[in-house]
Each structure stands twice: as C-alpha cells, then as structure tokens.
C-alpha cells in the first residue's frame, strides 16, 4: 500500500492549487477526483457535438496573480482573453455600455446622465482604494479578535497597521462591509440600468437581494480582481474554464503530484482524533500524513467524517453554516448570434454590433427588477424574470463552437435550491429554462430561432454532478456572519480542523469563493508551516 505526505480530496481549482504548492515544496501528493475530469466547477465540457460549454464558472478575474506566477500557469497553456465590457439593455430600447476603457465608458454615461459620468470616476477610485485596503486580507489567513495567541496578535497588529495607514478609508470600508449594494451605489448614480448592473455584482452566488445589507461587500469581492494590473477586468480563459484547471493540473503534475480520476472518496480515515488517510468507495484505503478536503464544509464534515469523531458543538456550527444555493446556469448552442433590439440603433448606423456583444450582457434594468427576482426566491420559487449575466464564449475563443456558430453561457439568479410546496427541480428544470429564454427574448426576440441545444444546470444539478452542497457556488454564503475569522464557523477559522492532520482548502474557507485560488494557496501554506 502506497503512502503519501498529503492526499487531497477533489480536483477543483483550489484542490489542484493546494496540491501544486505542496508538491513544489517537495511533498508527495495525491489528488483524488470523483469525476472523469479535473476542474470541479471550473470545467469545459462538449455536451453537444462541436459546442463546448463552460458548464459552471465561466469568467476569471479574481485568480490571484501570485498564483499564476508561482505555478507558471501561462507556461502550461493558461491564457486569458479580455471581455470588452458590459452591455445592459435598459428595457425601453436603449442600452448602457460599460467599456473596458474608462474614457469610452465616460462618453457612454454622458449620454445617459452627465452626473453619473462624473460620479463614475469617483466611484471607481473609491472602490479601487477600498480593494487595495482589503487585498492584503485575501493573501493572509484571517486574524481573529477572539484569540489572544502571539501569532494571532501579530496578525491583528499587522491588520491594525494596514487600516491605520488608510484611516481615511476606514469608514468607507466599514460602510461597504455593512451596507446593501443598492444603497451603496445609490449614493453615486441615478441611471436605473447602471444602478441595476452595479448592484447585481452584490448578489452573485449569494442568497441576498440588492437591498439586503451586506451585499455591498460581495460587490467589492467581485471587484477585487480588477486592481491587479495583469488583467484589469474580467476575462475568458482560452479553451474555457478547463483551460485554467488543466494548466494548474499540469503545473502540479510537473512537480510530481499524482492525480487519480474517477476515485470517489467514501470517508476520511480517522484514528484517535487524527486523520490517517481516506477510504475510497469500493474499499481501497490510502494512507497519508495529511488529509486535505477541497469540498465544502458541510460535505466534508457531515458526509466524509463519521459523526463520532466530532464534538457536537462543532457539528452544530457546521449544521448552521449557510450554504443556500441561489443561482443556476443555462448553456446554449446557437446557429447564430441573437440580435438584441437595444442595438438596433448601432445596426441602423451600419456599425458592427460585435464589440458590444464580445463582453458580458447583463439583464439588470433596475434595482427593483433584481429585488423582485429575489422576492420570488425568498418564498421558494425561481425568479419569473431572472437576473442574467450572459457571455458568448465563442466570440472570444472561436474554438468553442463550429465556424459561424456560437455558444452562450448564461448565469442566472435566482434559483433557490429548496423549492416551495415540495416541488422538485427535476420537474422544474425546463420550466426554469423557459423562463430564462422568455426573459431573454424580451431583449432579443430571435433567440428562440437560433437555439440548437440547451443545458439547464439547476442548484440541484450543481449538487448532484459537481458536489456543491445545496448548489452554492461559493461553498457557503459570502455573508458577514460567514467571512474572515468567522469562515467557515466561529472558533474554527482558517484551514485546520478539530481533527489533527486534517485540513480544508476549498471556497468554504477564507477568503471565499470565485475562481480566486487563495484558499488553496493559503491552506498549503498553513499545512507546510504546521509541520
């Protein structure tokens, strides 16, 4: 029987990043993946001949630049294709376009509101400074005010210094941490579609509405990647999301990490409060000095660890961890690009609409629109008119679809995991897909005629296929009560667990979700430092 320094459960981007760092440090590492491909929710799959879907995650901005550098990802094929900007149809025939280029955005906003055009610069500058302030938190394990150990006090002093140096932004940051996204952006702007689109980044992956306090932080979380200089906006990886996962996997393998596919783990082997390895479905035992789970906290502790090994109070905290899924994906194969009526004026001028379509298209005409979509979900229904963030990957990377044809990736809110009145997603899946297409057709009436194939990925599917408990894409909500030293649960922050030699490295740990990689990287550091 082989023995490893570390066995990592799950080959999602965080599991792979953790493995790569451990292998780079000379450790003998094995990654175990249940599915037939690496990536977890960071995958490309050809589900319809010639058409490649980014089934779950679909854009990258948050991936930490130091990870890209440390793991030499470009050498292993990682390439990011920048999105042009964000197009928001206003719903009354016009549109608001936020371009990659600040000057272009200003000219566009002038058309809607000179006040907003001016405020946009102040807003971008403030967010930039706040992101700079908070960025160090993303590359260090969380400091906890509840612990008085010397290491923790040192971390707290470091934090105090960071904030002390930026005390002019202290209150702006405190407001951003506690306000709703809607109220935050309403301090700056008046154009409804701009307000809608900006506050929409406060609800991504979270069961909150734009008017729910705390959603402003989620907005900042999504802004974080934009300050890194490498790529100042969102981008699409060549080859789809597998382009990211494969590059990390290749980097890890080149350092000696082993990756076994189709190897579902049944449980973590624990003896006298210490992790000793894992048992695979089918009974195979694999011994390791450290066991690292990249799965979400609920799946890790409630499914892979036998109940007797956990303190009941800790188990209760894990039970109370909020992981409500709220989003879904619809992926389409298209015979042609749909025509958005809001771009009629561009077509009438004889200009190409391609530059407008080669970015994100946001269906978020106003804050109230998003809030009503949330109201449906609160009571256990999918949004009748959902919020959508849509891209055409094939416009950025033509290899994603046959020549002249296209794929669309549509991220949708809200689709609650738990449906009212005992309804099941198996019976609601296509009805939800219809609601998405019907809503899109309000903006691009010919879309129905262009659809060759449709995949609807509900929270139920995210759980069943990708192992995301309740379909939560962040492995746990990014709400204030579950962030920083409270993530995943109070008293057990960071990457260690109550079980010796067992660690966590997924998005359920600080600093949370998105294709960021920080949890995997910080967990590896904690594991190496703890030896």
């Amino acid at each position, binding site marked *: 029987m082989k023995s490893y320094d570390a066995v990592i459960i799950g080959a999602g981007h965080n599991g792979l990043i953790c493995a790569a760092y451990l292998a780079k440090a000379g450790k003998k590492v094995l990654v175990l993946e249940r599915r037939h491909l690496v990536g977890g929710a960071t995958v490309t799959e050809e589900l319809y001949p010639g058409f490649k879907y980014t089934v779950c995650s679909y854009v990258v901005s948050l991936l930490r630049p130091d990870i890209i550098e440390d793991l030499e990802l470009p050498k292993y094929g990682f390439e990011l294709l920048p999105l042009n900007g964000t197009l928001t149809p206003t719903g009354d025939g016009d549109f608001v376009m936020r371009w990659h280029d600040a000057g272009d955005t200003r000219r566009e906003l002038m058309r809607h509101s000179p006040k907003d055009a001016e405020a946009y610069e102040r807003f971008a500058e403030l967010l930039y400074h706040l992101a700079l302030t908070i960025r160090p938190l993303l590359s260090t394990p969380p400091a906890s005010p509840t612990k008085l150990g010397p290491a923790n006090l040192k971390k707290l002093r470091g934090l105090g210094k960071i904030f002390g140096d930026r005390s002019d932004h202290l209150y702006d940051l405190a407001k951003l941490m506690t306000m709703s996204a809607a109220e935050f952006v309403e301090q700056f702007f008046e154009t409804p579609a701009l307000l809608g689109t900006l506050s929409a980044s406060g609800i991504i992956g979270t069961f909150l509405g734009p008017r729910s306090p705390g959603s402003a932080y989620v907005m900042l979380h999504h802004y974080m990647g934009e300050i890194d200089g490498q790529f100042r906006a969102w981008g699409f990886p060549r080859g789809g999301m597998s382009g990211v996962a494969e590059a990390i996997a290749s980097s890890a393998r080149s350092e000696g990490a082993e990756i076994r596919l189709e190897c579902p783990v049944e449980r973590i082997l624990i003896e006298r409060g210490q992790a000793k390895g894992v048992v695979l479905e089918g009974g195979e035992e694999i011994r390791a000095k450290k066991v690292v789970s990249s799965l979400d906290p609920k799946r890790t502790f409630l499914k892979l660890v036998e109940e007797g090994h956990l303190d009941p109070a800790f188990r209760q905290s894990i039970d109370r961890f909020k992981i409500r899924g709220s989003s879904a994906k619809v992926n389409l194969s298209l015979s042609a690009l749909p025509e958005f009526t809001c771009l009629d004026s561009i077509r009438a001028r004889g200009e190409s609409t391609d530059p407008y379509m080669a970015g994100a298209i946001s269906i978020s005409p106003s804050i109230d629109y998003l809030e009503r979509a949330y109201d449906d979900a609160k009571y256990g229904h999918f949004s009748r008119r959902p919020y959508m963030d849509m891209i055409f990957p094939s416009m950025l990377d033509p290899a994603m679809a046959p020549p002249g044809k296209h794929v669309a990736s549509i991220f949708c809110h809200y689709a609650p995991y738990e449906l009212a009145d005992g309804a099941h997603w198996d019976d609601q899946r296509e009805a939800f897909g219809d609601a998405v297409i019907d809503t899109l057709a309000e903006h691009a009436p010919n879309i129905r005629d262009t659809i060759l194939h449709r995949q609807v990925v509900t929270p139920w599917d995210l759980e069943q296929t990708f192992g995301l408990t309740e379909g939560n894409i962040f492995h746990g909500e990014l709400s204030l*009560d579950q962030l920083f030293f409270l993530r995943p649960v109070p008293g057990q922050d960071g990457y260690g667990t109550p079980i010796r030699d067992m660690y966590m490295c997924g998005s359920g740990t600080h600093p949370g979700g998105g294709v960021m990689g920080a949890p995997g990287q910080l967990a590896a550091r904690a594991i190496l430092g703890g030896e």
Partner: protein
Amino acid sequence: MSDSRKYDVVVIGAGLNGLATAAYLAKAGKSVAVFEAADHVGGTMATVEIAPGFKAPAALDTVETLHPAVMDELGLKSYGLEIIEGGGTTVLLGSENAHQVNTDDPSIAELRRFTGRLGEALEKVWTRPLPAVEPTGVGGIVDLMRLGWALRSMGKRDFPEALRFLPMCVKDVMDEHVPDEATRAALSSSSLFGASMGPRSPGSAYGLVHHQPPCAGGVGGPVKFARGGPGAVTEALASSAKAAGVQVVLSSRVSEVIVEDGRAAGVSVNGESVRADRVVSALDPRTTLIDLVGPRWMEPEFVEKVLQVRSRGTITILRFALDKEPAFSGGAATLRGRIQIGSTVDYIERAWDAAKYRELPKEPLLTCSVPSALDPTLAPPGKHVMLVRAQFTPYQLDGTSWDAEREAFGDRVVHLLETHAPGFAKSILHSEVDSPVDLEARFGLSGGCLHHADLALDQLLHMRPIPGWYGYGMPVPGVYLCGPGTHPGGAGTGLSGRNAARQMLSDWK
C-alpha cells in the same frame, strides 16, 4: 426671554433624551434651558387626549426599555413615575386561536441565555460614549481595551458566536433556535420595531437585543406601562430637571442655531435670540444640522454625509378610543401585553416587500396595546384606548400620496382588526391615523423615523449618527446632538441623552 439672558446650555426639544441631557447637565451645575415647540413635554413619549377622557400614547406606548440608570439617577419614581408590569406578546391566529409567548418556554431558553449575555456585554457599550477608534493617547486605548474586554468576558464560545450573531438576519436566528412559528413571528416583529428592513435582512438580528435587552426583561419578555400613559415618564423627567434648575420653555420653536465666529452662540426662538455657548439638539441629525445650523458652517463632504443618513420611517400609528374592550381571541389576558397580527415570518416579510417598492402592504404587520386595560385612569369607566403600530408603511409612496391613501389604509387596518376581534369596528368612538408623513410633521421626525436614523449595521456604533462623528459633538464647536440618532440610538432608553451630557461635561473647558 431676551438677548440679555445667557445660559451655559440650550437644549432643543423636550422629549425623553432632551430632558435627560438637560437634567444631567443641570445636576452638574450648568444653567440650562430647554425649548419645546409643542405645548407639552414628551415628544414621541407623551400622553395625548384623543377624545374627552381618553388618553392615548403619542407614539411610544410601553416603557420597559427606559434604562434603569436614567430612572434611578434622575429619581423619576420620586417625581411620580409609577411602572405597571404588563404581560407578554400574544400572536393572534385568526378569530379563534392565539399564541402567547412565554419566557419560560424551554425552546427559547438557549436564545434567551445567549442574547442575555450579549445584551449584558452590549450594555457596557451602550451606557457610555464610544471610545475613539482612531487611538489618540493612552485614554483612548484604555477605552478600546475596556470595550474589547466587555465582549471577551462573554467567554470562549459565546464571544465568537456573538460576532457571528450581530450581522445575521432575524429569520436565520429563528431557524436556528425557535421551532414554533408564532413565537418566531413575535420575536421577529420585536426585532424589526421601526426598522426599514424585513426578517431576512442581514443585521435585523441586532434588533432582538437592542429592543429587548436583559434589563427590559430580555427577548420575548413582557411589556411595562407607565401609570397615566408614557407621558408620565417625561413629565417626571421634566419635574426632575426643573428641580435641578432647568428652565423648560413650552410652545417655543427653535428656528435657528446661531453661529458666530464659527461656533455656537445660541438659538433663535419665536423670533428672539437666546445666548448660550453650547447648543444641544434632541432633534434628528438632518433637521438639526441642515435646517437649524445650516450647511454653510460645515465642510461640503460632511454635509453630504448628513444628507446620506437614512431615516426611513416605516410605521403608521393609529390611536383608538373604544366604547368597549376589544374581544381578541385569547381573551382579556392578552390585553395586558402586546397583541400581534402577523403570525408567520413570511407574513412579516411580505408586509416588508411592498414597502421596498414604495407601496402599502395589503396585509400590514400590526402590533397593538390597550394601556387602559391595566390603567383605568386612561379612559372613562368601561371604555378603552388602544394604540396600533402598522408596519411596513413607507414614507414615500409611488404614484400616490399619504393624503390620498391615509383613510383607506386606516380602514384596511380596522378591517384586519375586525377579523381578529369581532365587533371592533363598531366600538370605535374616535380614531387617528398618523402616517410617517404625519409623524414627521407632528414630531419633527425626518422621514417619520422614530429612531431618528435607521438602526442598520452601517448606522450603528462609530457610524452613528455620521461615520466618524460618534462623539455627540458636531463639526461646529459647541453644537451637540443628544437624540436617538446618536449612539446607542432609539426606542425610549434615554441613554443617548445621558451619554451626550456625559460627553459634554468631559469636553467642558
């Protein structure tokens, strides 16, 4: 009153906090005058005669949150205040059934224990001005450490739990602790008193502790009334203040805070000027700083922050004079405490939904009290007064106005009460409906907000009333705030007034 008269301090507004500030300052030897626009003291904590012989609360109906320190230090009982112990909350479940929240209920024991410990720790934060977060010298650091220790004293398990609890939504807290739906609704409603939030809004859990601290009986605890109505509290307070030398001047509306050489020099009252080096206002931050002081004395960035303070009233208050006892399900015992219509968390959430879109809810959340059931002095024999708070009713309505909607909304509330207390509509001798717009006009509350500024996470502690200006003193030297818009804020505790006086005395040169 004339130019020659000069006080150490002028207080604007003779509500609970204004009078408390005045009394504490006078007890410390300062000469103090309080100017009140109305012809009686009390502000929102007053008793008003709505029909001959019928005395109803002006806005705040119960007094259990009045802080014991204020009551004792100012000797309110010796000035005639008598507290009557009331009952708990009864949630009506149609015309037949009712559910009484009982503090002995074992299923809420853990929640009461935890919120009790949290409340005791927070009380140390509420009962004094906040320590500076921009540590300036040893004193600031000592204060900060004291604050940290107050929370740490909760222990290894409760302290991290407390930090998790504070930003939570009340619905999640209920999901974790309370199995019974009617109890969940009762506790959610108590946490949302005067809030511009729903049960699913993060931060709403804080209201549980803020509105029902341990010293007021804790979460789910009983209400208390003042004999003679809530005005008895402020009348006793006024007597206490007068005994300490305070001049309380009624029917005197302050129209301006006089600023000379960039600092406070007095106020204009009824066209005359009254001199004082310090002016403290119990009115809300916006009214005080924008309307009375005037933006020209402050930096534009500060003025912008004042204008950004959210004070969105969501309560409509209805006062009734009744010919007979209302026949609520649950019987006469319910009349001793608070009566709630809205028996599920989702009912409350839906009532909030409408307000988000600047609409009136079809089925508002109603919390009622019948003070005359325990205090017969409030109504003629056999007759009653009743106060109803209807939530959530936005200040601003889309496509219509309160003048157009007031009567119809009042009818909607009466209709709802009738379904739970048959015969109610017929028993009404007199009724009044005060929408947030009316509350603004009547009590000078910006936005009709009873808390003067929303009790939301971003408007608490060092963010209240204005981020960075938590020390009661405002940028114009000599101008102070002492109303519930300041730390710790809201709902009849008197602590803002007490803290403000303490801060002013420590600033005194």
